[in-house]
């Protein structure tokens, strides 16, 4: 799980061009949107694409993203349970 968490952090930084952020700057339980990393709605769409491209997970209901992308931990749990690649 720790490996997946680190992998997700690195991918988020790369995909969302978070130039000045290091994996260790992202707390596992901190909110990704709003006060946390300050991600926006375009970032959310990019994360949905990332889930499909990297893990073969299609998120058909965009409102489900709110729970899935709550934090790195919730993302990792979701990926672990649903990944097809």
């Amino acid at each position, binding site marked *: 799980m720790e490996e997946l968490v680190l992998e997700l952090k690195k991918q988020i930084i790369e995909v969302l061009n978070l130039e000045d952020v290091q994996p260790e700057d992202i707390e596992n339980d901190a909110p990704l949107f709003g006060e946390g990393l300050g991600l926006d709605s*375009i*970032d959310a*769409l990019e994360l949905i*694409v990332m889930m*499909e491209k990297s893990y073969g997970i299609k998120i058909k209901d965009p409102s489900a993203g709110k729970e899935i992308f709550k934090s790195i931990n919730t993302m990792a749990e979701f990926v672990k349970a649903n990944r097809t690649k």
Partner: protein
Amino acid sequence: MTTKQWVKITPESVEVSGKTLATTNCGAALLTEVYRAHVNDYPKFFKMDELSKLGFLATELLLQAEGERHSESDDRAIILFGRNGSLVCDRKYQQTIERRDDFFPSPSIFVYTLPNIVTGEIAIRNHYYGETAFYAMAHCDEQLIRQTIEASFLDPATQSVICGWVDCESDQQFEANVKLIYKE
């Protein structure tokens, strides 16, 4: 019309109203270097396409040269001109959709597939609510640019304009020649 300040950016150098900034990099790396040295408080810069980075950076330097920062303003227009528009970003987006077996359209690239987004980025950063426009033209036609700026001053609300040439052919070939012009 009076030109108050101007900024010229090429892949090799950055000039602000006649003064060349000390830089060591070229091309896209030059833009990042200048951002870090002279702006460095707007992380969204790294999410922008090359055209927006170029226009944003030129404007930041222009406004720093102006001195006191004007924001929450509805009397300042942003009118830019360029040849290639958002073509660099259009091509980049095309790459995300051209293969059936690797079809992952990128939302963050897609949002920059319009050249006038650069004017929006500048307006958002500075809270400018005046006219914004990006005109595509085959070459930098100074006379036509001047006529367009004069026409924008026909709107009594417009007292100053950030205007000029912002063109990006690739991340290594670009040019910005931006001016701050006042009506009087």
